[in-house]
């Protein structure tokens, strides 16, 4: 550390007057506290603004907002059920698709191949996948995945929309795999070496060690990893908006076009005429905020308990 030079001392603190120094110290501390409080205010402010913004719709529809399935701006009736179903089904399906992949690559990276060119390639690819913006996933999905799904639908005899819940789920799955995989790998690395070695010493195969020692030990962390990945998928907007089909009816099957909570906001927010319409969209935003808050609070708490560094 050669960063404190003599010059600093000559020009700086040692010759400073005591009172000036105290003023500067106090100012600095105040600055730190002010910054921290500002950060708190931003998060609180987000919640309060959403609540105030959606007040009209909360007053008008109450709890019915979540259970009603008609979203009709012309008639001024707003119910978010189709979007809740769209969001929940796409995120669940995405999780189902992504779990085998993220789980396999996490185990592969943390237990089988700790170094070597292939694990390097795998790690690099996971990072690259995580760095691609969601808009590009959506764009690619729209032009490459949608035609594939469409031909698939024709073969199966469904109406060939191409866009819909399945397409959105596949894109979401591709997007959350790197996130879930790196999370699970972190947790699996925390399994103590001596536990694993004890298993091997008993003559267990690698599969048996993973099944009977690693997974039971890491299950809490893996669960919260899944939860956090779910939180990711839940709020994802652009990729879903581009491939989900934007239909405000309740989806009939996984090939139906639908709309998620985030995508309906993205599609209709700037065109919303009238206070109630806007307020209803803000209430959907409030719901998204609340759900992400709960999911992340639980996930982070478990992760913190396990002392996982993110």
């Amino acid at each position: 550390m050669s960063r404190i030079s003599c010059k600093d001392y000559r020009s700086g603190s040692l010759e400073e007057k005591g009172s000036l120094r105290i003023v500067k110290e106090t100012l600095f501390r105040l600055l730190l506290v002010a910054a921290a409080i500002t950060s708190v205010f931003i998060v609180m402010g987000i919640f309060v603004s959403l609540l105030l913004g959606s007040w009209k719709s909360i007053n008008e529809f109450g709890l019915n907002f979540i259970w009603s399935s008609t979203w009709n701006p012309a008639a001024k009736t707003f119910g978010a059920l189709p979007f809740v179903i769209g969001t929940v089904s796409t995120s669940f399906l995405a999780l189902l698709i992504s779990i085998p992949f993220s789980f396999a690559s996490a185990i592969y990276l943390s237990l089988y191949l700790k170094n070597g060119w292939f694990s390097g390639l795998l790690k690099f690819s996971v990072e690259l996948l995580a760095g691609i913006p969601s808009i590009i996933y959506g764009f690619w999905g729209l032009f490459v995945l949608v035609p594939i799904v469409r031909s698939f639908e024709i073969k199966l005899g469904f109406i060939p929309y191409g866009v819909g819940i399945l397409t959105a789920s596949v894109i979401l799955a591709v997007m959350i795999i790197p996130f879930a995989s790196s999370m699970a790998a972190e947790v699996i690395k925390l399994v103590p070496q001596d536990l694993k070695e004890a298993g091997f010493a008993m003559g267990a195969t690698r599969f048996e060690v993973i099944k009977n020692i690693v997974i039971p030990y890491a299950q809490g962390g893996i669960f919260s990893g899944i939860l956090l990945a779910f939180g990711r998928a839940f709020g994802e907007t652009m990729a879903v908006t581009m491939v989900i089909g934007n239909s405000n009816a309740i989806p009939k099957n996984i090939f139906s076009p639908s709309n998620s909570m985030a995508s309906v906001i993205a599609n209709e927010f700037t065109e919303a005429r009238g206070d109630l319409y806007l307020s209803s969209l803000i209430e959907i935003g409030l719901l998204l905020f609340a759900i992400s808050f709960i999911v992340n609070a639980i996930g982070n708490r478990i992760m913190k308990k396990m002392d996982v560094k993110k």
Partner: protein
Amino acid sequence: MNDMVKKLKLRQIQDKLFTAIIGIFSIAMLLPLFFILFYIIKNGAAAINWHFITSLPKPVGQTGGISNAIVGTIELIGIASLIAIPLALFTGIYIKEFEKNKLAAAVSSLTDLLQGVPSIVIGIVCYLWIVLPLKSFSLLSGAVALAIMMLPMIIKSTYHSLRLVPESLKEASLALGTPYYRTVIKVMLPAAASGILTGIILSVSRVAGETAPLLFTAFGNPFMNFSIDKPVNSLPLLIFNYATSPFSDWQKQAWGASLILIIMISVLNIISKFMEHKWKTTY
């Protein structure tokens, strides 16, 4: 005995099978990445040329460019950084230095939660905070939205890098009579600089591709804009608008814009990787 051997064989086969399955899944995971990169590079490279980068968008039928979106992205990120970096830096210092304080614990967990807030929600909030009072979509509102998205990452990286600075270094400085604020600024921050800078660059690369918070803040603009109270275009917004348009000409330009965006983000990620490895000070 024969039974044991048989069982052992079975277990070994089971183990091999498992290895094969997770190997296949891990490789299969890479396929979409190569697919996506292949399409973007193939279609993007065909669209990019000097004219494309340096000229403004033109109506369908004439070949325009995306210069306003590139400049707009840089403007948005620049202003967002100006807002986010000082705030996040000081907040990060606060939660490290006053770790036992209740406020610090609250800030720390709120930052974790802020990281999980869907980006579209932040777009709504910035619409309510800035677009409504100013009565216009604006560069400022977009930059604030991106700044809020950058905050948690920079706060966390500042906190974690400062924690790696040995306590003895700080005590040595204080023992020499250096005032506290100078100790933080001249001793602790430089010692943690590589980690903090890595966090800042990663947060920039993260928000560079954000679209959702800009939809109703920066909004998009077919012209070049340098004023803070007017709507501005950005690469992700342009990709969204062009990709969902029915014109094949615009779709082609969206591929080009995607490639440029990916290159920008990759360069930032590579710089941050480089700093993490080469610049790291260990104690």
